[in-house]
């Protein structure tokens, strides 16, 4: 894994085609195993930033070093490889492929990444590992696993998504507003479970939300508004 930071952004600039710059970030980093809360209202470019980090978008300028690979200069196939092998992503909602089972959803990343499949095989096999993760995330009812994923509650779906992000030992988990569709109780429970599991596995966590009340759960908290020069410039006008 190396001793360097998990995530290191420098002089990043990004704009959607034909639009004013959305993101301009001098410096942003995240240490290995660090759990960071990134706060930002909707429309502030959070999801775009996550897309850049995950390597599905490429910046116009700057450096986005993720786990030692500069996403800005890497070929798209290298970015795809890094995402498949070492990142885990959790969305706000509708995380699951509706027509496959809970376990198949959790196992999905092992299908796309040989490295993940290998690590999981070393840990006792895909199914055993998927079940273990689900149990640790509080989904220990065997009946639940046989149900169509669309019949699960949103809270349950988010935990299945967390298990999927975590399977195969990724080094960085990116969570984009994963709790905004949850009520207060299941929200706190979800964060606690996610944090515990990320800690046991030694992964770093980049947790993005508009809700400042959540910042207390994390090692460090940053406001995207203060980080993003483009937003500040816009605010000044």
């Amino acid at each position: 894994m190396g001793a360097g930071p998990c995530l290191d952004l420098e002089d990043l600039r990004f704009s959607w085609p034909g639009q004013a710059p959305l993101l301009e970030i001098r410096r942003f980093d995240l240490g290995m195993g660090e759990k960071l809360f990134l706060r930002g209202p909707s429309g502030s470019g959070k999801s775009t930033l996550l897309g850049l980090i995950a390597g599905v978008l490429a910046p116009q300028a700057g450096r986005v070093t993720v786990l030692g690979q500069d996403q800005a200069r890497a070929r798209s196939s290298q970015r795809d490889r890094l995402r498949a092998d070492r990142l885990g992503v959790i969305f706000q909602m509708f995380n699951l492929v509706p027509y496959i089972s809970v376990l198949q959803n959790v196992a999905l990343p092992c299908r796309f990444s040989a490295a993940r499949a290998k690590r999981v095989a070393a840990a006792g096999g895909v199914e055993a590992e998927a079940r273990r993760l689900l149990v640790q995330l509080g989904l220990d009812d065997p009946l639940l696993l046989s149900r169509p994923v669309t019949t699960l509650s949103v809270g349950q779906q988010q935990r299945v998504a967390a298990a999927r992000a975590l399977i195969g030992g990724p080094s960085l988990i990116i969570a984009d507003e994963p709790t905004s569709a949850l009520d207060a109780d299941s929200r706190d429970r979800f964060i606690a479970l996610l944090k515990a599991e990320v800690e046991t596995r030694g992964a770093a966590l980049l947790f993005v939300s508009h809700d400042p009340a959540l910042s207390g759960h994390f090692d460090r908290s940053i406001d995207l508004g203060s980080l993003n020069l483009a937003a500040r410039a816009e605010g000044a006008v």
Partner: protein
Amino acid sequence: MGISILGLAWRSLLNRWASAMLTLVSVALSVALFLGVEKARTAARAGFDNTISGTELIVGAPSGQINLLLYSVFRLGNATAEVSWPTYERLAARDDVAWAVPISLGDSHRGFRVMGTTPAYFDHYKYGARQELRFARGDRFQDIFDAVIGAQLARDLGYDVGSPLVLTHGLGSQGLSDHDNRPFRVVGILAPTGTPVDRTLHVPLEGITAMHVGWETGTRNPLADTLGEALIRSFDLTPKTVTAIFVGLKQKGSLLRTRRAINTDRSEPLLAIIPGQALGELWAIMGNAERVLLAISGFVIAVGLVSILTSLLTSLNERRREMSILRATGARPGHILVLMLAEAGGLGLAGSLLGVGLVQLLFLVASPVLTASYGITLIGTGLSAVDGLTVLGVTGAATIIGTPAALVALRRSLADGLTVKV
């Protein structure tokens, strides 16, 4: 427990089963139409081509070679004129002629054609790969009032050896112009041949002459009934004319020369045709219609393929989230392409296989009906290389036509980033 890309494509399609079924059915129907036309075409042709073999020339009164072929071999239509008996005798006596069998058409029995001929017909008439006529029961006619019937006629009318029957003058329905004063008796039933022979009632030429005694004006002379059978048998029953003559040659090499000699005969205008050549002319005429039909059914396949593209493109919106999830969990562009192309190719493959099945079912049901009502025997409608090629072609074309949809899905999944849009 893990799921493969093809597994994903399959489950995704199942998730949209209603529209998938519609696409499948439209592909299946288009393929069925194409194969149906193609098979009916080749089968009908094979059936026709199989009808007569071993006969080098057919001689009749001058009309057209297709016309002569149709009435003499296929019992379709009528002769406009006849050939005189002396001409037949002269023809049969030619040095280059090995055999000549006269036939006389014009009467019917309950919708089936009656053909007067000589016993030699059963030696010389061949069909398919030079197969001879075989008797399922009984034997050839001996007496002038004996009849030999085809397999289908026997089955349809429930006749067996010994059954009496009455012929009808001309092709009208049974009743007023029956030759009921001269009943015939079935003495032989031919084995099935898949040719018009199956639907023909064969009687001796003398029988035809005998039952027409008293019919010289075209209707029954009331006095005809007063002639006893013994008296009729005492007449010279050699026919004055015959409808056509099947000719076999001693040497095939003399075919064109003999034909020219007959066609230029001074004593009576005649037309000699080579059956294979006349069939060729027939197909040349039908060929254009066939090609148009094939082209139309080809276009229908194109429509079926376009329906695959339509269903893929319309599914893209509802699958946008699905694609994003897959991309986020590590799917590469290649995976998205495979997912889309597998769906297109899969629909093409399943649809065309279904189409092949439909056509087989159709012919299974329709073949006996066609044979029974039109005497058309379809040969070679079973599975063939054409089916395999069509399935391959449609599957390949479907995969190719799915490419635009796959590229759109790919472009979108890249542009969407990780944001799952609803």
